[in-house]
């Protein structure tokens, strides 16, 4: 395999001698993870809210104080009647209204349950769900402490009105998404561009005339990128751990194995793209529109799949990063083992095989 070794060595030289490639390979992941990490903030701070208290008793006052002293919320206004709600929301001054029903404390004491209504401005669904979750957390925290002192179990019925969004509970959602994005970028885009470049300069023709088989060319092309993508994945996991305190609760070995699987998928997509693209610009264009945008928009990375229209939800089933992000979140955040993610893994393996076969066929027909 002397000829393959020389080929791989040459690929490394291409990568290491091109500053732009190096920046994309190693600078981008670090910058991206830090930007996403600090921009997509899942903590909330000083959110303006209004309170509508029909009860005005000790319990509602205590809960209100607890909410306002948490540091997450600032009281903008005390409302007196339901009709005010609509207007104050429209003015855009506040993002949430907390409404206590009348005789809140009495009901809680006698019947063991009372209702609080939480209205949120869901025009920004992501932050709305966060705001609501924080409010609920505070109310339940109060309830837990109060229950210990009370004779009977207490229940506060927190009725939430808005599009509720379970996907956003995790404070660490962005790291798995960024990882998927970067691996897609590095593996698929860089491979397709580097193959397209050989077509442009005519060296691909010379390679095809040489005794090197197409499979050698493909293996030679992807080997450096597998290695570099793995390094990238480790860098991202380390950054998540040390900078953002993101845990890896599950098996690190499983995590890396799944990562290698996803890298293979991305590489086979890259090869597929290169069989269609005649030059670097087309390869770049296809990578961005076919791979990058769906990875950002349709994978559940930033926008929760649950919030999408039904049709787009169906589309996400063919977006590979969707499965990878689910796998990553399960392993990193929930610490689940292979048993819980075998379905996603199977889908990824199936997709990888499909793309490899498809690109092999396309690579071959190019010769005819």
């Amino acid at each position, binding site marked *: 395999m*002397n*000829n393959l*070794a*020389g*080929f791989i*060595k*040459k690929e490394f*030289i*291409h990568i290491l*001698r*091109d500053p732009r490639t190096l920046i994309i390979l190693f600078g981008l992941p670090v910058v991206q993870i830090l930007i996403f990490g600090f921009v997509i903030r899942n903590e909330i701070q000083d959110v303006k809210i209004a309170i509508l208290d029909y009860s005005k008793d000790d319990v509602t006052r205590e809960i209100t104080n607890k909410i306002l002293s948490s540091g997450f919320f600032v009281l903008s206004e005390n409302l007196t009647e339901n009709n005010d709600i609509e207007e104050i929301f429209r003015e855009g001054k506040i993002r949430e209204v907390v409404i206590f029903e009348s005789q809140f404390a009495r009901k809680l004491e006698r019947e063991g349950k009372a209702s609080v209504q939480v209205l949120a401005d869901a025009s920004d669904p992501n932050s709305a769900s966060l705001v609501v979750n924080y409010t609920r957390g505070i109310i339940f925290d109060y309830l837990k402490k109060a229950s210990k002192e009370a004779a009977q179990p207490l229940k506060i019925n927190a009725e939430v009105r808005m599009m509720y969004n379970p996907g956003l509970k995790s404070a660490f959602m962005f790291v798995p998404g960024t990882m998927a994005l970067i691996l897609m970028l590095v593996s698929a885009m860089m491979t397709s561009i580097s193959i397209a470049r050989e077509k442009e*300069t*005519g*060296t691909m*023709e*010379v*390679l*095809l*005339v*040489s*005794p*090197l*088989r197409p499979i050698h060319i493909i293996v030679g092309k992807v080997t450096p990128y597998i290695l570099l993508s793995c390094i990238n994945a480790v860098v991202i996991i380390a950054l998540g751990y040390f900078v953002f305190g993101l845990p890896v609760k599950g098996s690190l070995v499983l995590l890396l194995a799944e990562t290698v699987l996803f890298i293979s998928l991305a590489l086979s997509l890259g090869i597929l793209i290169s069989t269609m693209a005649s030059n670097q610009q087309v390869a770049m264009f296809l990578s961005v529109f076919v791979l990058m945008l769906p990875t950002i928009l349709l994978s559940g990375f930033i926008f929760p799949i649950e919030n999408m229209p039904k049709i787009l939800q169906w589309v996400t089933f063919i977006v590979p990063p969707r499965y990878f992000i689910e796998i990553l979140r399960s392993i990193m955040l929930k610490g689940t083992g292979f048993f819980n993610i075998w379905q996603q893994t199977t889908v990824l393996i199936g997709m990888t095989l499909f793309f490899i076969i498809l690109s092999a066929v396309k690579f071959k027909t190019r*010769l*005819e």
Partner: protein
Amino acid sequence: MNSAGKIIEVKDMVKKFGQFVANDHLTFDVYRGEIFGFLGANGAGKTTAIKILCGLSLPTSGEIKVAGYDVYTGREQIKTRIGYMSQKFSLYEDLTVKENIRYYAGIYGLPRREINIKTKTLLERLNICNIANTLVREIPLGWKQKLAFSVAVFHDPELVFLDEPTGGVDPIARRQFWELIYEATGHGITVFVTTHYMDEAEYCHRVSIMSEGKISALDTPENLKKQYHANDINEVFVKIARNN
């Protein structure tokens, strides 16, 4: 020169792209050790033919043998016996001169020790030892061309295909390049060269002239000039074009 036999045998080669016939029943032979010029205007079907002979493309029909092997079944055997230089020179700009040589030699599976010795000899012969570690991007076009040719015959193929090898370089560089080609034939390498510079046809032992997918003429430059009552190959070419 034909005592060593035929290295390329083409009989009724046809290549169609849909309705368009790029090669229309080509029949010709190339003998070992000769310089065979494959002439024709752009779009006459030269590149299509050379691609089939190199194994980059399959013919629609016809019997074709290269270096004794069938192009349908013996593609892998053919590949180890031929060299190819494309019109783009096909060197890696971000690799040095030496790295390019060693890389292509490695692709053809040459052992490392042989690569070391031959690389040194080649650099000395081309008198480019001083730029051995210069990136190809930085060397003049004429040198790139010589280097591309030397790389294409580095593994001592029986036959080398040169697709428009002299495009874009000045007459002096072209002249020097043809000296390199003669040197290679001196080592027993057969040269199959396409060009649209008609003056270069005079350097070939035999030339074939293609137009509209067919071979219109095939002979030595001298015989063609006699046959068409022409002073040079350019005139022959113009006369053939008019007849069509």
